[in-house]
């Protein structure tokens, strides 16, 4: 697979480390509340496990060490969009 890095252009996926769904950006912020244990359980362990277009986090370990959000079809492996994770994170109203 070739990942079209927004800053560096097309790079082989071998240069990257895969983490998982972009949902992992959205870590619960209510850790001081008792109710947060259920939120953290959902965040940490439960997955949508999508068959189709999946937004996922890739880390460019062998390159510029940026985190990317890659939209990839899990049935065909076709990559349709690549964004910098910090841009996605900010758009979600979180820090970088």
């Amino acid at each position: 697979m070739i990942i079209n890095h927004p800053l560096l252009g097309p790079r082989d996926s071998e240069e990257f480390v895969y983490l998982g769904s972009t949902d992992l950006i959205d870590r619960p912020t209510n850790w001081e509340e008792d109710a947060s244990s259920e939120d953290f359980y959902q965040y940490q362990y439960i997955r949508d496990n999508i068959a189709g277009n999946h937004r996922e986090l890739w880390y460019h370990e062998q390159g510029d060490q940026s985190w990317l959000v890659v939209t990839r079809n899990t049935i065909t492996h076709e990559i349709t969009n690549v964004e910098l994770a910090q841009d996605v994170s900010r758009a979600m109203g979180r820090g970088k």
Partner: protein
Amino acid sequence: MSKTRYSAFKVLKEALTGHKGWEPTWRDAEPKADGYDVIIVGGGGHGLATAYYLAKNHGITNVAVLEKGWIGGGNVGRNTTIIRSNYLLPGNEPFYEFSLQLWENLEQDLNYNAMVSQRGIMNLIHSDAQRDAFIRRGNGMLFADAGCEYLEAKEVKERYPFLDMNNARFPIKAALAQPRGGTVRHDAVAWGYARGASDLGVDIIQNCEVTGFNIENGKCLGVQTTKGDIKAGRVGVCVAGSSGRVMAKAGIKLPIESHVLQAFVTEGLKPVMDNVITFGAGHFYCSQSDKGGLVFGGDIDAYNSYAQRGNLPVVEDVCSGGMAIMPMIGRARLLRMWGGLMDMSMDGSPFIDSTEIDELFFNGGWCYGGFKATPASGYCYAHLLATNSSHEVATAYKLDRFRRGAMIDEKGVGAQPNLH
């Protein structure tokens, strides 16, 4: 269909009478209008084994196995055929040892030649720390009466002179062996269980994809399929690899990601190895099939996939693992490679459990260790479906174990499914 008992006498008789007396191994069925006591979704090894043990152990024979394609066309038909019970943790080891005991009696039980070959498995040890870890694992195996054998480097070298004992990066220091481990003819497992279940009255329905579940007031009443709605007293989903897709139809999310695992076979070679050998410093496991091909595999491709095909970087990774311990494979040509879908769970261990929906049950999360578990998985799932309680060796395989902090994490890598 009448039951045909297979034997040497039967083969001889058929040979002398023109092979006119053979009958289909199992009966291809269509859905019954008035439904079933139990519907198993998924006609793979685990689903067929579940149907067989439901009928045999619990007398529940009004059972249908629904399969989207043809039976045995999923992971039971595309694995590296290894059986073993060399696990460490108490939640796992008794289950896998029970499975190995069922393998040992499988062919007599099913009257079907599954070519169960207890040729032994040998895990190579490459460092002092790994030696300590494997000795601990060996003790765990002894606790479960699984048996094991610790081999010094000298013994390993004597038995398998082709191993690269003094590899600069991964020297072989010792090995932990389980002589009772081995290989099984994987397709025959599906066919044998299908025949056993079919003979006891189970309907095996192929080309019947489940497209939805009929759920009312939190209770599952049956399934919607490409062959129409089918009523059921109880539904057991057993579709590892596609668990995410199927359970989503019931609105249930799982602690599972689907990943692709590749496997490989070389051209046929003369006999070179009589057991299963695994690399301890990377991920590589290999045995030689009766046709002579070296059958091997390694890591999953590490990203979510439902594609049943992998990518080249993992091919290189697996082959370099093989080269590190047995450089002789460098001269062999790769004949075939293929990919299958794995339910990668959050701790590397499976689930055999009820769900939040009444009368809907779930079996999955087998990561890439499902084949060896086939008999015990079917046995324990049948027990759960018949009695609504977990079998004693499968009590740890609950879906809510992460909520309770009761993970069964053999590798200790945490909730990172692509690392298990």
